[in-house]
């Protein structure tokens, strides 16, 4: 689960991590008040207006602006709120439709009074799958695309692995601060920053922290100026207060709805819908659609208890996509009985009424023969198959 920048910063601050301070605003009026509050609380003359959407690269699309005075603040807040912000990470990238900005963060100008004396670092924490340990990745080259840094100057990207038994050790924080070239007060501040950041990562069951940039100010403070925080959804039962930070406005509405029915659904832009049990088989079915000349319109895992009601909900969701020219249902019945799924398909077909796209049903496993008979005798225009190969051939025929 992804958090907004401001939510991520609040989480960090609750663990004592120093952050760039800011206030959230949904309207220009709120932004004006936020600017006044920030000025009186921080003494910051200027403010940064930052669009809050779940995508990086916001500055590239005009979603981050510096306001030098109240007039500029009003102008930027007015422009950014309600805009369709395009970034390299929004759907379709810079050529796509962008994402609606519903709120902005009005934040202190942490680069004052001496912009040139500031230095930006990159710090992230995640679980390294290969090492099966948490790792802190850091670099002196902050404020930039870290993948490009890793490609061009890999020697500037450092990694510190954390022992699962012992956690982050004191010397590791010091090593990071040394490698970032720090000394004196800034060195001490950085060791504290790293220790608290790691405590926040573990304490919140995060799957990713990315602080880019992490700022070394002119007066030797260390601050998180941006935050990208993803939390492990499987661990939210331990953090009900964090679970409430979910912003479904940032998610695909169809996917949110599918989730409420217990369906694992991902919207794609192809022309053949699919309904499958099991994530691996669902991905494999998408691959078959591609190999048969179509392109998958979705990923959909109906789960291990595919009953008639779920099958019907899944049908309705797939059919809402006007690009869908055919639907492939691929169920390998183990614990799930194929005859029940077949009955679900027949019932859904009758309940929904006007299904105008061809449907290919491949049911294999427990009671597959009975299932085929149910489909074949239903009188519906459904192509049935038992072998995966037959299903693939049917897709080929239908999309041709």
């Amino acid at each position, binding site marked *: 689960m992804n958090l907004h920048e401001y939510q991520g910063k609040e989480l960090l601050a609750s663990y004592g991590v120093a952050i760039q301070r800011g206030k959230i605003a949904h309207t220009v009026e709120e932004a004006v008040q936020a600017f006044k509050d920030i000025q009186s609380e921080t003494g910051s003359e200027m403010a940064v207006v930052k669009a809050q959407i779940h995508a990086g690269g916001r500055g590239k699309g005009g979603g981050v602006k510096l306001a030098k005075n109240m007039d500029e603040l009003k102008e930027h807040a007015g422009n950014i709120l309600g805009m369709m912000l395009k970034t390299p990470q929004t759907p379709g990238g810079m050529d796509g439709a962008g994402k609606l900005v519903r709120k902005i963060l009005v934040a202190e100008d942490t680069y004052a009074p001496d912009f040139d004396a500031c230095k930006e670092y990159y710090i992230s924490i995640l*679980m390294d*799958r*290969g090492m*099966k*340990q*948490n790792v802190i990745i850091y670099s002196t080259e902050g404020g930039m695309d870290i993948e490009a840094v890793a490609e061009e100057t890999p020697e500037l990207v450092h990694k510190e692995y954390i*022992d*699962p*038994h012992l956690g982050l050790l004191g010397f590791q924080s010091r090593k990071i601060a040394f490698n970032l070239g720090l000394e004196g007060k800034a060195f001490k501040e950085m060791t504290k920053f790293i220790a608290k950041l790691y405590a926040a990562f*573990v304490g919140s*069951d995060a*799957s990713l922290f990315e602080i880019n940039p992490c700022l070394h100010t002119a007066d030797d403070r260390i601050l998180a100026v941006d935050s990208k925080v993803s939390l*492990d959804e*499987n*661990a939210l*039962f*331990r953090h009900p207060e964090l679970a409430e930070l979910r912003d479904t406005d940032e998610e695909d509405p169809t996917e949110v709805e599918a989730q409420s029915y217990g369906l*694992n659904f*991902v919207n*794609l832009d*192809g022309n053949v819908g699919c309904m*499958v*049990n*099991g*994530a*691996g*088989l*669902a*991905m*494999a079915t*998408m*691959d*078959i*659609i*591609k*190999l048969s000349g179509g*392109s*998958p319109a979705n*990923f959909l*895992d109906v789960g291990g208890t595919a009953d008639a009601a779920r099958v019907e909900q899944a049908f309705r969701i797939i059919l809402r996509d006007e690009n869908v020219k055919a639907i492939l249902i691929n169920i*390998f*019945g*183990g*614990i799930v009985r194929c005859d029940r799924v077949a009955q679900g398909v027949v019932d859904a077909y009758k309940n929904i009424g006007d299904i105008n796209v061809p449907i290919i049903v491949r049911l*294999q*496993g*427990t009671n597959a023969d009975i299932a085929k008979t149910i489909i074949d005798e239903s009188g519906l225009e459904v192509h049935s198959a038992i*072998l*995966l*190969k037959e*299903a*693939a051939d049917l897709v080929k025929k239908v999309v041709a």
Partner: protein
Amino acid sequence: MSVLVNKDSKIIVQGFTGKEGGFHAGQMIDYGTNVVGGVTPGKGGQEHLGKPVFNSVDEAVQKAGADTSIIFVPPRFAGDAVMEAAEAGIKVIICITEGIPVQDMVKVKAYIEKFDCTLIGPNCPGVITPEEAKVGIMPGFVFKKGRIGIVSKSGTLTYEAADQIVKAGLGISTAIGIGGDPIVGTPTREAVKLLMEDPETDAIVMIGEIGGNYEALAAEYISSTGNKKPVVGFIAGQTAPAGRTMGHAGAIVGGEDDTAEAKMRIMGEHGIHVVQSPAEIGETMLKALGK
């Protein structure tokens, strides 16, 4: 000989009296699996499905000689259940539970390293040695006995592969579902190694997904052994977009090396018979065996 589980395995079920654990324990017993009891803390001394219930894994080891455990405990307690099994001396721990927090698995993995045990899963369908032991949630009838081993990250795709192998006139020695989480106890390479060294396995089907580098490591291992046994490989997710999790917590394309294309290319370079279509696993295995 067989891999991980056989007719002599003494199996206990952790989460025995729960809905899921109870259901699948019944299915396993019906299959003929040697289930010697189950563990539900606080219900020790009772009987369930005609088998004894123990308070702890340690008690099950002491009283029933358990050496294998299958875990159906809910996600928040599952990590603890794995560690309890390891500490009690269980040799093969199979964790079916889906949805265990990643940071729990980081600790579990580090803790169980000091014990002589093998963890399969979590978030997996389990392990089956046909006609001997079904220690999992797979439909047993699909897996006919034979000499082809299967290693897979996915549940239903494992059944699909087994079905094609059987329809091709072959059979299964042992099928291992390693699980689809970011951290699993036995990655692809280690599971393939078990089958490579198994005298009752002639060839291997290896099924992966996008995300991580397990298949690439397994491919390197396979070619380094001189590869006496044919391996047929498939990677699901050729059409999955980058950055989106596809059902399994571990199935997400992060970099260039964990796309399906990259993995298939690496597998091909190491002499694995890579199938583009998951519908061709059975026939490709026949060809690989020269039949």
